[in-house]
């Protein structure tokens, strides 16, 4: 951590600091943490509905994208020097070795998926801008709040925004930009 300040300021941590904190056992009891813009966030524990959506999508994505892409769930990915989130899914370019020798990078990412119940605001306003800035080409937010159940598809990152946004309601399958003919049941 090297932060040049001329007024007292809240410390911001690098990914390397964050890893040292994880190794030192600073976060012993918590389910999940993420580093966004140098600040560590605690993520709420996963509920039954979130779990169910993950299981369905894991199978759906793996089945339809078999040997076309690599799908990984709930692993951290380093976006910048100070941002390392853990999306619910990352769809990566296909590699025959299934990334067994090194981690996938942002450049190899085709799609991030977030399942949002209590995290909707955080996903839309804190994480999504970081995804756009890092050039993640496509993000799906499954809005599974009490009021709504829909899929928000974000494409075409420009600065810290996505300029192409679509909403799909339950029953309407979605396809990745990269594989327009492969329809995915997301609900």
């Amino acid at each position, binding site marked *: *951590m*090297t*932060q*040049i*300040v*001329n*007024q*007292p*300021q*809240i*410390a911001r*941590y690098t990914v390397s*600091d964050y890893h*040292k*904190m994880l*190794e*030192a*056992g*600073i*976060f012993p009891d*918590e389910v999940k*943490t*993420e580093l966004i813009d140098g*600040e*560590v*966030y*605690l*993520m*709420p*524990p996963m509920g039954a509905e979130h779990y169910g959506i993950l299981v369905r999508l894991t199978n759906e994505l793996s089945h339809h994208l078999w040997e076309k892409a690599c799908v990984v769930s709930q692993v951290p990915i380093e976006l910048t020097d100070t941002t390392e989130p853990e999306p619910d899914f990352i769809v990566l370019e296909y590699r025959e070795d299934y990334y067994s020798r090194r981690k996938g990078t942002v450049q190899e990412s085709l799609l991030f998926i977030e399942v949002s*119940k*209590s*995290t909707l*605001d*955080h996903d839309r306003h*804190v994480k999504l801008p970081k995804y756009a800035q890092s050039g993640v080409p496509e993000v799906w937010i499954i809005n599974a709040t009490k009021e709504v159940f829909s899929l928000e598809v974000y494409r075409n990152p420009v600065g810290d925004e996505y300029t192409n946004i679509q909403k799909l309601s339950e029953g309407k399958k979605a396809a990745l930009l990269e594989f327009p003919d492969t329809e995915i049941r997301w609900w």
Partner: protein
Amino acid sequence: VVVMQTTFQAEPIKPYKRLYSLEEFFAMSEAGLFKNQRVELINGEVIVVPAQGPKHAGTIALLIEVFRDSFKDKAVVWAQLPIVFESKMRDYVEPDIALLALPREQYAQRFVFPQDAYLVVEVSVSSLEDDRTDKLQMYAKHGIQEYWIVNVEEQKLEVYRNPAGEKYHSLQILNLGQTIAPLEFPQHEIRWW
């Protein structure tokens, strides 16, 4: 028969910024996070303290000498060293100067707490606003009896006394060359400049 119906709906827990305890702050320091960086822990957040320019450092050096000469054998001069405030999240701050009760040896065994301090001094070059608001509220709240702000640019000394809540009831402003004695040592007037 009155049947009372209650509905209970739990708020979903949202992501929130992680705050740190004093123990975690020390563990982070040990893990090498704060190398070459002055830090404090306030309300669970780690605060990075700016590097010190010559005006700030020079004034502190001068004050250390003045305080040592005036309070030799009466108090411990504690310069830019930690004081811990006991609250829900324990704070760890390093005031520019504090005058502490003797004996000095006890502070090698345990943390310094506000009740050990007769006086806390902040030297303000660029930090005046922060020293008058956030720092002042924190010192008052934790019962620091007397708080001085050395306003370097305007060459004034602000003397705050009688803490109540997050304020001090008494404020005295001294000009260059005037003398002042801390409440605890009324016979020991010092020239603050």
